[in-house]
C-alpha cells in the first residue's frame, strides 16, 4: 500500500517513524521546534527535539559526541552550504572516530542538508556539493530524487551506524509521489534505472534527473531510446549498474549541476573508463554547470545550470560521434 506525499513530507514521515521506533533518535537544528506546539516537540518531547543557536560547528560536533555516547542524532541543517561552516566536523571528525579508534566506537548520525536551490538564491545557497563529501572515507552520501526514495533513504540513513550526509534537493520540495506506507527502507549503494533504453545511458540525480527524463521523452520522439539511471547514493556508489547499462548502450552522458571539475560525474566517468573502456562506442560526455558562481538574475542562472535541452543536445552529439547501429 502507498500514499501520495510531497518529497519534503516524505522525509518528515521517515524521521517521525524512526523516532517512534527508536528512542535513541534525536533531532535538532536551527529555527525548528521553537514553541511547545511544534509538531516534533509535541510528539517526542524537549529532550529529543531541540532548537539550536546558529552554531554549525557545535551542532554537528555535538551530534558526533551524542553519537559516541549512544544516540542517533539527525541534524537539521536546512542548507547544504551550512556544512561548509563546519567542514572539519563533517569531513575530519565524524568519519574519523571509528577508524582511529580501531573500531571501538561508532558515529551514527544524519546531516539533513537541502541543496541546489537554483530559484534565485544566488551564489551561496545553490551549490551541488556531492563531490566534496563522496570521497571522504567513513562518510556516506545520499541524495533522493523521488518522494519514495526521500522516505526510504532517510530511514536507512538513520539506522546506519555511520555518519550520513543526506542531501535533499530544494527544487523537488513540493514534487508529489507515491510513498510506501509504514516501514520503507531503500538500501544504500543500489542505483535506480528510472527509464530503460538501448541507445544511450544518462546518469543524473534530483532536479537533473527530472531534466534528463524530460530530455529522454523528447529524444524518444526522435527515435532515440535513452536509459536513465539515478545513482541515489554517491557513497557507496553503484558503478556496476551503470556499467551494465553502458554494456547495453555503449554511450554515456553524465549530467551534474556542479561545476565541471567539482562534479560527481568526474568520478563516475573515471570508474567507467577504467572498468568499461571496451564497452564504450563513443567518448563519455559530461553535462555540468558552467564554471561560474551561480548568478542571481534568472536568465543567467538558467544559462549556468544544465537543462533538458542541453542534455538532449549532448545525447545527439554522442550519437553523432558513433551513430546508432554502428
Amino acid at each position, binding site marked *: 500500500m502507498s500514499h501520495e506525499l510531497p518529497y519534503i513530507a516524505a522525509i518528515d514521515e521517515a524521521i517521525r517513524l524512526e523516532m517512534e521506533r527508536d528512542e535513541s533518535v534525536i533531532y535538532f537544528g536551527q529555527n525548528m521546534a521553537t514553541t511547545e506546539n511544534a509538531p516534533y516537540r509535541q510528539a517526542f518531547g524537549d529532550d529529543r527535539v531541540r532548537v539550536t*543557536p546558529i552554531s554549525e*560547528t557545535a551542532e554537528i560536533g*555535538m551530534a558526533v*559526541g551524542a553519537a559516541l555516547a549512544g544516540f542517533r542524532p539527525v541534524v537539521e541543517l536546512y542548507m547544504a552550504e551550512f556544512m561548509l561552516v563546519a567542514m572539519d566536523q563533517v569531513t575530519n*571528525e565524524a568519519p574519523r572516530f571509528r577508524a582511529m*579508534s*580501531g573500531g571501538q*566506537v561508532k*558515529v551514527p548520525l544524519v546531516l539533513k542538508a537541502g541543496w541546489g536551490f537554483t530559484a534565485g538564491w544566488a551564489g551561496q545557497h545553490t551549490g551541488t556539493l556531492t563531490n566534496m563529501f563522496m570521497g571522504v572515507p567513513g562518510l556516506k552520501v545520499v541524495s533522493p530524487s523521488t518522494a519514495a526514495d526521500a522516505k526510504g533513504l532517510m530511514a536507512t540513513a538513520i539506522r546506519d551506524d555511520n555518519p550520513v550526509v543526506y542531501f535533499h534537493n530544494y527544487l523537488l520540495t513540493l514534487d508529489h509521489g507515491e510513498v510506501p506506507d509504514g516501514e520503507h527502507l531503500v538500501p544504500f549503494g543500489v542505483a535506480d534505472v528510472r527509464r530503460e533504453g538501448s541507445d544511450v545511458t544518462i546518469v543524473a540525480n534530483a532536479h537533473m534527473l527530472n531534466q534528463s527524463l524530460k530530455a529522454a521523452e523528447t529524444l524518444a520522439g526522435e527515435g532515440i531510446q535513452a536509459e536513465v539511471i539515478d545513482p541515489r547514493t554517491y557513497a557507496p556508489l553503484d558503478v556496476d549498474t551503470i556499467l551494465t547499462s553502458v554494456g547495453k548502450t555503449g554511450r554515456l552522458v553524465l549530467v551534474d549541476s556542479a561545476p565541471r571539475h567539482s562534479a560527481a560525474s568526474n568520478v563516475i566517468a573515471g570508474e567507467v573508463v577504467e572498468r568499461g573502456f571496451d564497452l564504450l562506442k563513443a567518448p563519455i560526455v559530461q553535462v555540468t554547470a558552467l564554471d561560474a558562481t551561480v548568478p542571481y538574475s534568472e536568465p543567467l542562472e538558467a544559462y549556468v545550470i544544465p537543462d533538458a535541452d542541453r542534455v538532449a543536445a549532448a545525447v545527439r552529439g554522442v550519437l553523432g560521434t558513433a551513430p546508432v547501429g554502428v
Partner: protein
Amino acid sequence: MTPSPLDNDRLIWMYTQMVRIREFEERVKRTFEEYPGVIRGHTHLADGVEASIVGSVANMQPNDYVLTTYRCHGYPIALGTDTKAIMAEIYGRATGLCKGLGGSMHLCDPSRGFLGTSGIVGQGIPHATGAAYAAQIRKEGQVVLCFFGDGASKQGAFHESLNIASLWKLPIVYVMENNGYNVETQTHQEDANAAAGEDLSVKAKAYSMPGITIDGGDPVAVYETVGAAMERARKGEGPTLVESKVYRLSAHGNLIAPPGVPLHYPEHEAIAVFGDREQYEAALKGDPVPQFRGRLVNDGVMTNEQAEEILSAARDEMQEAVTFGVESPFPENDEALAYVYA
C-alpha cells in the same frame, strides 16, 4: 558542595597515577633515542600536567565520560587502561589500544568512558558537549569532563559549545589546561584576556557560567574544584569552566620533520624560542610530582620508602610497556580497511 574528602589511600593513589604518567611520558621521550624510527608523526607529552589530569579524573564515576585533546596519554593511564596497550598504540602495533590505527594523538577507551580525542585544536569541545547532551537525555547522572588547552579557547568551537552548554544546563565541566603556550606562541600574544592581565576563566562570564582559575600543579586543589563543578553538573545546575594553570615540562611535541630525519624532543619553547631559561627553571622547581611527594611525606601520608616503591613499580611497568610495544607485531594490511565503516 564539595567532593568526598581524600583519605590517605586516595592521596597515595593520586600520587601513584602522577608518577605512572610521568614515567610513561619519560619512556615515550626516551624511545626516540632507544628505538629510533619506532615512533612516527607527532607525540605530545603531559609531563608537568599530571596533577591536573589526576586531580580531575579522580572525580569520575563509572559511567562518566571524558574527551580530550591529542595530548592524551595521561588520562587513560589514570583511568586504568593498560599501559602496554597505550605504548603499543604509540608504536603503531596490532596490540595497541586502537590496533595501531590511531597513534599517540587518538587514544580511545570507551570501556572506561574515554570516548576519544580530536587532533584538531578545539574541535573536541563540541564532541564533549554532545556527550553531555546525551547524558542529560539519559538522566542517569552522568557527567562529562572536557579537556582542552588555552589555545583552543580561541576557536569558535569553544564559544559555540559553551553557549549551548550553559543555555541547556548540560552536565559538563570544561577543564582548560592553560600551559602558557600555543605551540610556541605565548598566551598573552594571542589571548585578549591574558593580554589585559586577566585570567582566562573570565571567558565563562560571556556564557553566564561559573569560571574558576586554579593552580593545576596542586592535585588536591584540582580535585576539589573539578569535583565541586562535577557535583554541580550532576545536580543539573549546568557547566563550569575551570582554568587549570599548568606548565608542560617538555616542548609542544617532538620535532616535526619529513621521513628520514631522526625525531627527538627539542628544548622547551621558553628556552628554544624566547631564551627565557629562568622561566623554565622556575617551572622545574615547581614540578608537581616531587612537590606532591614532599607534601605527602611531610604530612605523614606516606614514607619516602613508599614513594620509592611507587616509583620503582612505575619504572618496571613502563619498561614492560616499552618491551611489549617493540616486540609486538604490526597490524595486517586488511586492518586499514576494517574500521572505515561500522
